């Protein structure tokens, strides 16, 4: 693969990660914040895969996107859903 295309893909992946992270900070409804955090962890897993670290990508995929999302959702269920000012 060419050098320029590789740089373009890395730049776009980091931009997508930053966009998702900003969304996770801004949203007031905590369920939406959890969904945005899951998106960030997906993009992080692709970035690890792209930098040729498949072990870390597998750990990030399994922990970050499946288990952490479910644990956050259960925690929201036990407490409150909407964050107050």
């Amino acid at each position, binding site marked *: 693969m060419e050098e320029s295309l590789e*740089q373009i893909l*890395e*730049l776009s992946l*980091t*931009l997508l990660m*930053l*966009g998702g992270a*900003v969304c996770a900070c801004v949203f007031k409804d905590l369920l939406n914040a959890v969904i945005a955090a899951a998106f960030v962890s997906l993009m992080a897993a692709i970035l690890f895969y792209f*930098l*040729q*670290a*498949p*072990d870390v*990508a*597998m*750990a990030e995929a*399994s*922990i970050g996107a*499946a*288990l952490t999302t*479910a*644990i956050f959702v*259960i*925690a929201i269920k*036990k*407490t409150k859903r909407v964050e107050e000012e």
Partner: protein
Amino acid sequence: MRILISCVLLVILSLGLVFALEQAPFGSNQIDNADKPGRFYLNQGMEKTGAANVVTSVVVTYRGFDTLGEVTILFIAAIGLGAVFHSRKKVKRYEKEKQSASLILQTGCRFLFPLIVLFGTYVFIHGHLSPGGGFQGGVIIASAFLLLFLGCEEKKIPMKSMNTVESLAGIIFVGIGLAGLYWGESFLENFLPRGMDYMLLSGGVIPIIYIAIGFKVGAELAGIVAGLIERNP
């Protein structure tokens, strides 16, 4: 205006991240200084340990004591969560407005549960040949139990036997380390004979250690999820 400024800041930050990551030689084989330990691991890890995956040879053999510490950290976290969730009162379930899962979801969960457990077992047994290992396989097995909690509630998970499995796995891990100290020269040394390279039995003690770690991590995470779900608010 605020949105514009934040967008410009985002672009600057991501450019900085990309150019910082560009400096490191990720995924390439050309590490310049020949006397660095990375060169040693890349060149001789395969012959010394028999693991085709370099990450596994570092994690389990060269840095095995550190892995024991990581497993202990997870164990302490599970104990802390259990202490927080423990309640002396009799647990009465509050299932007034609880919807049950639909038929498709129940059937799918019941069908997919053994397949996911099988896949997790594949991941941690083949940890020295393919990407993955004990932690990843354990998390996959814990996800299977989480799916069982989400999909069909009528299946109960025996938590007593799960605690037994967790303790046995920890004892096996420490016991293999001490056996390496007895028959070999150091803690967690490979004392079993090794077969051909790139085959399943080429790792010596590495698959046994990974089986222990996988069962331990899976049982601990499943216990954490079960404690979270069954706790009254």
